[in-house]
């Protein structure tokens, strides 16, 4: 158990450092095992430093910075142990336009380098435009959901209009 855990830690930490740098276009971050010398008992700490800022407690990071840091960690986990499915439910909601683009760039790279299939729930028009295909969920009849395979150019305003 211990050897495997340490090996997994090293791999996830390596990916996390790279992905954080990609999402923040700079800065530095790493993972640390704390609270015990035995990896099987230790806790996983995240050290994150956006570009130009001092290393501070995670709670002081902004809403958007926390979403990007968490995304880097989740992707680092499944670069280490490929997961067949990833579903992200409005993860882009706290991001500004520049970070939405960087987030989508990373999604593209993940889709090319892994066999993971992604379902991305979003209201953001930029994110929608970067998807390979879109599914619309409508409630033409109030309270009753239906799935519609949407032509990419139709996007959300068509669905809202159908309400």
């Amino acid at each position, binding site marked *: 158990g211990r050897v495997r855990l340490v090996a*997994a830690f090293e791999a996830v930490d390596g990916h996390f450092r790279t992905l954080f740098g990609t999402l923040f276009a700079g800065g530095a971050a790493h993972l640390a095992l704390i609270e015990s010398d035995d990896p099987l008992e230790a806790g996983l700490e995240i050290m994150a430093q956006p570009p130009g800022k001092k290393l501070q407690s995670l709670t002081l990071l902004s809403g958007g910075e926390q979403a990007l840091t968490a995304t880097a*960690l989740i992707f680092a986990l*499944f670069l280490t142990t490929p997961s067949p499915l990833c579903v992200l439910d409005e993860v882009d909601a706290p991001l500004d336009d520049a970070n939405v683009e960087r987030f989508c760039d990373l999604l593209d790279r993940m889709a090319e380098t892994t066999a993971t299939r992604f379902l991305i*729930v979003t209201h953001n028009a930029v994110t929608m435009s970067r998807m390979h295909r879109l599914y619309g969920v409508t*409630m033409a009849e109030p309270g009753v959901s239906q799935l519609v395979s949407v032509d990419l150019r139709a996007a959300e305003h068509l669905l809202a209009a159908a309400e």
Partner: protein
Amino acid sequence: MEFQRLRLAGFKSFVEACELRIEPGLTGVVGPNGCGKSNLLEAIRWVMGEGSAKSLRGGGMDDVIFAGTGARPGRDFAEVLLTVEDNGQTHEVVRRIERGLGSAYRLDGRDVRARDVQLLFADAATGAHSPALVSQGRIGAIIAAKPAERRILLEEAA
């Protein structure tokens, strides 16, 4: 493992049977507020063996059964079917719940326990509690969690 198709009937707001093809790459899921997007993710977690009604935003597990609308009566059962391919073989996992009677699982037509379904997915580094399934508003949860709770993420990856 490859996820290929999800079929729902009577699950939350998806009273009519409908199907979501899960294809390689990036599939966007869009629609107005309250139309059922998050319910879809919950259907995936439910069929993979989710045991907590609270994490599906309900009081009891019967809350996943279509409760009715202003114009339609509620239903008494819900069913979700997930088609996956694993080592070249196609599997169909079905979970079905009846109001007041609890839920049952079937794998390729045979009755199985929740445990069997959970193990099938755990062996493929996925499952109802996979960190790769991020529910709405929960992206910050990994940051807010205590270090000891985060270690579990590493254990899944090991």
